[in-house]
């Protein structure tokens, strides 16, 4: 049967592609990190072409942003709400609920917090916790309708959450151009929060927001990885049919998870108003919905990874602003860089799913 003279292997190439069954998480992390690096290099090339001197780029991005104490504070300051929306994306997507209503839920969170400030509810010492609670509850309530509609009437949540954003936005405009407008000037924002209504710095200019965000990230990690709900959620995420058959309370899991997502988005709204702006403005939410989805995607719905990616996106935001100031690079360049990073990480999936292997003893 085996004839050595006319024997030829089916494949002359010495490398073969195999479908990988499993890959350890640290290898996956390495692949994604490499993909991010490739993405950053491509972005750097584009920025150089756009007129930023190559030497300055490194200076701007790495040295000035991360090694300058003030910039680092700015990054952390910027990161807190991004971490929140990233986490909100992570949990919702894990329940297979495409929550595109992060911005609407943020707006309601901010409105809820501002209402406590405006109507002076509670004693000054309790004001900040009350604002936080109000933001969480308002964000959660804004997520309630779409999830109930989905569970009971099978209404597509992509449409319902997206449309509810417009309702929230117009209500916000109604408030800041109307009854809630700061009487002292004519700009579309609410009166400035009092000092005790703003998130204080804990030490050396480090905002309480980032501490809070880190804490919440660990709570979400607990929820997804340590609690029984997390196990249920894995079943709902991976095989909804099996989940139902083996006794996972699927509807309750989805309901709870989506409400958590809304609450986190509400918290993000609170962090921006009480931490950054100090008042309710008409455009504080812009871009956060997209960023939340992007962070959740880049982080593969992993809470800790989302925190890291949010920091990266925040760095990009801060560095982008200074590029804008010093080199007249349009801010849309930052969005371009975000998009490049997403594409790179999405492509790296190929290497996570496949293995390239050299054939041992293959003849050529």
């Amino acid at each position: 049967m085996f004839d050595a003279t006319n024997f030829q292997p089916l494949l002359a190439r010495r490398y073969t592609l195999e479908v990988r069954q499993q890959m350890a998480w640290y290898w996956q992390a390495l692949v994604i990190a490499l993909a991010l690096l490739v993405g950053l290099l491509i972005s750097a090339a584009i920025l150089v072409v756009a007129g930023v001197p190559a030497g300055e780029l490194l200076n701007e991005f790495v040295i000035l942003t991360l090694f300058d104490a003030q910039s680092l504070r700015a990054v952390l300051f910027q990161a807190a709400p991004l971490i929140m929306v990233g986490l909100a994306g992570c949990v919702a997507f894990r329940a297979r609920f495409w929550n595109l209503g992060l911005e609407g839920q943020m707006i309601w969170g901010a409105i809820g917090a501002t209402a406590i400030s405006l109507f002076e509810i509670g004693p000054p010492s309790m004001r900040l916790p009350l604002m936080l609670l109000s933001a969480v509850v308002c964000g959660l309530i804004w997520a309630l309708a779409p999830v109930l509609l989905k569970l009971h009437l099978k209404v597509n949540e992509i449409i319902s959450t997206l449309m509810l954003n417009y309702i929230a936005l117009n209500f916000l405009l109604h408030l800041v151009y109307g009854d809630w407008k700061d009487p002292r000037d004519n700009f579309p924002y609410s009166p400035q929060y009092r000092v005790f209504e703003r998130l204080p710095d804990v030490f050396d200019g480090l905002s309480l927001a980032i501490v809070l965000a880190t804490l919440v990230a660990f709570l979400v990690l607990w929820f997804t990885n340590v609690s029984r709900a997390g196990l249920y959620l894995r079943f709902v995420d991976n095989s909804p049919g099996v989940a139902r058959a083996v006794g996972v309370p699927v509807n309750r899991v989805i309901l709870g998870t989506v409400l958590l997502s809304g609450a986190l988005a509400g918290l993000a709204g609170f962090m921006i108003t009480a931490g950054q702006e100090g008042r309710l403005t008409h455009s504080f939410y812009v871009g956060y919905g997209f960023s939340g989805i992007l962070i959740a995607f880049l982080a593969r719905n992993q809470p800790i990874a989302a925190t890291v990616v949010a920091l990266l996106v925040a760095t990009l935001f801060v560095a982008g602003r200074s590029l804008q100031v010093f080199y007249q690079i349009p801010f849309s360049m930052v969005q371009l860089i975000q998009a490049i990073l997403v594409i790179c990480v999405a492509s790296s999936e190929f290497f996570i799913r496949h293995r390239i292997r050299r054939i041992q003893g293959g003849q050529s």
Partner: protein
Amino acid sequence: MSNKNAIQLDAVSKSFDGFKALSEASFTARWGEVHALLGENGAGKSSLMNIAAGLYAPETGSLFIDDNLVRLKGPLDASTQGIGMVHQHFKLVKPFSVAENILLGLRNDQALSFRQRLQQTAEEIKTTAARLGFTIDPFARVDQLSVAEQQRVEILKVLLAGARILILDEPTAVLTDAEAENLLTTVQNFAHQEGAAVILVTHKMNDVMRYADEVTVMRTGRTVASLKPQSVTVGELVKLTVGDAPTPPQVPASRAAGEVKLEVSELCSTNPNAPILRGVNLSLHAGEIYGIAGVGGNGQSELAGALMGLPEPVSGSMQLVGEGDLRDLSASRRRELGIACIPADRYSAALAAPLSISDNFAMGEIHSGRYGPFWFLRRRRIEADTAAAVSEFDVQGVRSLQQKAALLSGGNAQKLVIAREFSRQPQLVIVHSPSRGLDVRATLAVHQRLRSARDAGAAVLLISEDLDEVMALADRIGVMSAGRIIGEFAQPADRQAIGQAMVNHV
């Protein structure tokens, strides 16, 4: 029969993620013969044939078609070479018609409009079907066809694409006795009369003995023998396949059954468009296996779904004696009462394929709080329990408890389901086609588990389309037809009489 080789695979090797699925396997089929490829689950039969069909690229080895060395770049290449494969899981576009599905597989080299080509294909379907000895409506939607009819569509698809080497992967797994006989006769004619080569991938000894001209036996990725089935006995063939001869299945010993455990009465489907169940009545006693035999599609899946607590629209009652209707029991209550369910389709109703073995196992006792309160999972206890169950139930191929359940072979996945479901002493066991797709050894292991559950006093309801399985296991047999139990037989039952009841009743 000519002696010319139709297809020859020489010393082919293939690994998946470090696991060597094929090591230097060789296989030769000649024109005009039905060549069976026999082996247990995971022996490498499907991998070898997927290489022949151009779906996998081998790492080493060579492939000859008609004694010419060829290299296949993909399935399309294979189809050009006249190789057609019918997979175990059909690859059909469900909402498309028969003709549309078949047209998809044909090359677009004509100057005709889509509609004309469709019409032309429909004509070809009719002629080819007639030649093979069956009829099929080319414009019927595929999802409205029975499994056997869908399989015919698959066969027509590869034949119309010009296949002269027909590979059938486990073709009779989903068919009834009569349908299987029909199919195998058809392909036998195709080989004997039209001179084509038919490769039958199977683990059913009877099919091999009755229809194959030649059989190649595979074991753990190697081809161990190639011989004429007429020259050996079934026992010898079994021995070649599994390495050592397993004990043949026996008719269970009759024993005194206990009191009634489950009383199903007038169970009907409430969906007026699909009135599949039309009044099922049965009572199941503790300490017995009640087997439901019948041709597939007579309401078995719906009955199993309703009993297993899936959202199945039914009226009537399913009284668990002393506890009320099965429908009113929560998932945790079902577990507490020792109700174990083993569904037919493991990966759509029992195991989450992408999740780990321990995650899947944990669902068995999660509701009882054994694995911690709602806010905390006791992972170490889950892992310890899983490890114990994996070894007790002989689940093989477990490299790590964190490995995805999808990596288990069919038989071992089934053992994992049983390990989970039987982790608590079962009182009521509902099983649907438990040995579907399993090899001899795994089937015996599953059957042994069911018998010992019965001997420990459990009431076992076995729903299976495999009459041999029902005959081997059940103490009483109910025949299901058109959504009803139309007759009951006590063991020792007459196989012929049951077979008659299965097909005669309308």
